[in-house]
């Protein structure tokens, strides 16, 4: 059998992977001189931008591209491992746009000179490649492999700040948690393969849709349920959902801020992409089994995240728990999948897109402040509006967005989309839990926002950084665009 590969379909991950290699080679052969790191940053940025351009071209062209296919002659219909459809395009766009911001933040982080630059960008691009591949994966093996491609570089990135105890601790914690979750997920995946006899998501879906008649002899019907629970648990680790959420705060705080931003947006988006793919394509007919579990996890996750965030005094820890809470909001519509299959997945993806934009603004400003104040406590933000008004207004806007209030319309519409899916799906109790959580969330977001505008007697330095300013500017522009015209996202996912 000769497989033909559609290189235009895999252009985006290919560009990212080649750029990663290029960065490593350049780092090895360029003479070590001050400012050399900046060149690598520009190369990495160029690679991501080129990938983004290709993606835009693919989106304009429209249509669905497939490659790495198994022909129909080998039993069943034609199944492909790599599919470039609307879902893939949206996720890839999200990951790449977030990637641009993270690379810009990295350029500021790396000026300190304590971190090896070439390795940093190589690993970063590796993660992006994995995330992009994951969104396009349509078989279990490729899903697991690309999920690992997302996770493995992140351990190293977290630990990259050598001689920093917190960073090492964070890396180890992340490593252990991630490895355990992968193991659990692999177990679930192998069970699923054993029951259905296929790794392709569409074939698994066809198997379950046809009823259990084709189940191999001697396989108990409960095996599928076990497989589902194990796969869910594995992904729950990745997206920091309850009860596998405890690692979030320590890891976010210990990691360099660009890595924390990457974890909270790109790595999380990848986790959700995999989860949505498996649940809504492969296991669509099993929704009765997994939807209630997802509903309970969503309710617990948003509550735990919000309650833990209320007590935080450190900016990154607060954002960590807030992002756990936001994971709960993203999960919630999936629980309504049985009632409104189309809207449910769309609402999750839409919320994820809105969340990515607003969260990156927050991380950008936190990065800016962290350059002047190492500890990065919430108290360090007092009076920010008086010495750096633009940064303060950006942060205030993103926090109000995360809280979901006007003028942060992006956040408000995101919440409305999720609420609509839940209410339409008939999950009244989950809607009420989420409503209560919105209020808890508002408490810490508004308390932080109020600090920005509280006058401070002592003078403070004005933190400045070109790349961070560009990153924040980009993220704010996208968030504003989402506020005025959320239709951009809604029509893309719908």
């Amino acid at each position: 059998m000769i497989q033909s590969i559609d290189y235009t379909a895999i252009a985006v991950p290919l560009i990212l992977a080649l750029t990663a290699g290029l960065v490593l080679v350049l780092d090895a052969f360029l003479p070590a001189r001050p400012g050399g790191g900046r060149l690598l940053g520009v190369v990495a940025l160029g690679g991501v931008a080129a990938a983004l351009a290709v993606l835009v071209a693919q989106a304009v062209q429209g249509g669905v591209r497939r490659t790495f296919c198994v022909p129909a002659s080998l039993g069943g219909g034609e199944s492909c491992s790599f599919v470039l459809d609307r879902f893939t395009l949206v996720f890839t766009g999200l990951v790449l746009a977030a990637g641009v911001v993270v690379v810009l933040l990295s350029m500021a982080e790396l000026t300190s000179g304590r971190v090896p630059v070439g390795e940093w960008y190589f690993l970063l691009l590796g993660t992006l490649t994995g995330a992009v591949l994951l969104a396009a994966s349509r078989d279990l093996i490729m899903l697991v492999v690309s999920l690992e491609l997302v996770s493995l570089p992140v351990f190293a990135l977290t630990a990259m700040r050598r001689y920093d105890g917190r960073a090492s601790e964070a890396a180890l914690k992340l490593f252990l948690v991630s490895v355990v979750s992968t193991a659990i997920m692999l177990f679930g995946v192998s069970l699923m393969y054993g029951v259905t006899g296929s790794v392709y998501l569409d074939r698994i879906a066809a198997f379950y849709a046809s009823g259990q008649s084709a189940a191999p002899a001697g396989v108990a019907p409960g095996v599928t349920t076990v497989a589902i629970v194990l796969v869910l648990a594995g992904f729950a680790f990745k997206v920091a959902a309850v009860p596998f959420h405890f690692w979030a705060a320590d890891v976010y705080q210990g990691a360099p801020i660009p890595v924390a931003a990457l974890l909270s947006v790109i790595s999380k988006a990848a986790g959700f992409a995999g989860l949505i793919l498996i649940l809504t394509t492969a296991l669509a007919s099993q929704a009765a089994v997994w939807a209630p579990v997802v509903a309970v996890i969503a309710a617990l996750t948003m509550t735990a995240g919000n309650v833990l965030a209320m007590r935080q005094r450190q900016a990154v820890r607060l954002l960590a728990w807030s992002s756990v809470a936001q994971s709960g909001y993203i999960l919630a519509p999936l629980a309504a999948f049985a009632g409104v299959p189309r809207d449910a997945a769309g609402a999750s993806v839409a919320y994820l897109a809105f969340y990515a934009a607003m969260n990156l603004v927050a991380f950008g400003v936190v990065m800016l402040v962290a350059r002047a104040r190492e500890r990065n406590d919430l108290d360090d933000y007092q009076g920010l509006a008086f010495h750096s008004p633009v940064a303060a207004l950006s942060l205030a806007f993103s926090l109000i967005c995360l809280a979901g209030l006007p003028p942060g319309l992006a956040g408000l519409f995101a919440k409305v989309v999720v609420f609509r899916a839940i209410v339409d799906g008939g999950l009244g109790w989950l809607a009420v839990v989420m409503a209560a959580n919105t209020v808890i969330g508002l408490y810490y977001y508004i308390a932080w926002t109020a600090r920005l505008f509280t006058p401070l007697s002592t003078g403070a330095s004005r933190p400045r950084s070109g790349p961070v300013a560009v990153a924040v500017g980009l993220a704010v522009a996208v968030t504003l665009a989402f506020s005025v015209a959320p239709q951009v996202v809604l029509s893309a996912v719908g």
Partner: protein
Amino acid sequence: MSWLLLALLAVPLAGAASLTAPAFAGRAAGRFGIAVSALTFLLAVVVAVVFDYGDAGRMQLQTDWSWIPGLDLRFHLGVDGISLPLVVLTALLSLLCFVHLAWRPPDGGRVRALVFTLLVLEVGMIGTFLALDLLLFFVFFEVVLVPMYFVIAIWGGRDRRAAAVKFILYTLLGSAVLLLGLLVIWAQAGTLDMVELAAGHGAGIARSMQIVAFLAVGIGLAVKTPMWPLHTWLPDAHTEAPTVGSVLLAGVLLKMGSYGFARIAIPILPEGAAALAPWLGALAVVGIIYGSLACLAQRDLKRMIAYSSVGHMGFVLLGFATLTPVGMNAALFGNIAHGLITGLLFFVAGGIKERYGTADMVRLGGGMLRRLPYIGSLLTFACVASLGLPGLAGFWGEMLALLGAFRPAAGLSRPLFLVFMTVGGIGTVLTAAYFLVMLSRVTHGRPRETVPVGPALASAEEVRVVLGPGEPVATGTAVAEVEESHPPAGRLADVTAGELVAWVPLVALTILFGVWPKALLDLTGPAVQAIFGLGGGAG
């Protein structure tokens, strides 16, 4: 002419946006605020002039654009007889607040920021009354939260932080429940268009879902209105807010809740309303009695006025609960009257607090009519109007609400509503009682100096005795400050020109609507008839 409504929103928004330009220093910002809000008020007056009064039940001057098709959200604005008075009231109170602000800059300084906040607030308030799309209504309903939070948290009194947090958390909880209710309506009826939904009179929504939706929407609006027992955020917020904040909170923000009942809850969910009206009525009369009794127990003038709002809004809710045209008209009338009178009361109370340095009735002493004849008279006028003296605006809303309760809609238990009417009647007596007690304490009697001053007061201990516990410990300089901020009786300044400009329009309108209630009732009447499907113009 449909651009008029758009301009009503665009002018304050553009004003707020242009304030971010660095050219505006302190005083210029204040004057700019007056100019922008005056222009907005002018536009509101123009809307009132071009409004077709012969057809007040119909939505006029509509603007209808698609905004977010993915959410079915349309930018749909319009006015009818229910919303027009509220829009004009909002524009008027905002203008008066800016006039007041220019005359007396806020204690916290930062005039530009305050003007910016108030203009954003105005956008939200006017937008709420103009919106004809459920989600758009919700968006505007939420727009006011953050600005009002900052008004209280930055320019408020001593416990401003706690009050501001309580305000925003409480009202957001209400809003979240409101959103769920709106989404239930949407899921059932399949449209967000208020005009279409109101014309359908609940068609397409099952009775059980109507009850669920009315419960959710009602709780959301009741927090804002506020209805007992969801009112506990209100006294703190009103007391701690600066004068302009209290005026807008009482004058407009509370109306957004009651307006929601008239615009969404009752017209769109008639069966849900019929099922839950007895509960609404019961909680309303409990609120009337509770508010009055709480007022009797208050020492702080602003806090007392805040609790009086709970009682007055109880009458408004009782009017809605009757589900009759009379009751609805009463509620809408009471809405406007309360906005005018309580706005005036908070202005006057703020003026008193600025002069005496306290709003504590005991420390104010008596004899205000002698020491500050004009302010004392205005306070008396506002109180008498608020307690519902016939001939002033406060009377009609309460009287008609009780009349509505006398003959509630068919299907509601008449004996129950007769009980409500009786309890409400007792409430009016209690309302009169607390206002008269307050007046007798503050305006009448022998003038007693608020803070004894003179050589006798030289040590910190004595200052502390005078100021009462909880005040900062004073030293010699603080004594001087006390003398400065609490000038002795002879030197208290009476009403100023700036205050008169801000207050007289409210006095005039209170008298006008008191002697000529038909001016307002003719406007709301046809719209109310349309809600109950009785055909326009018959009222």
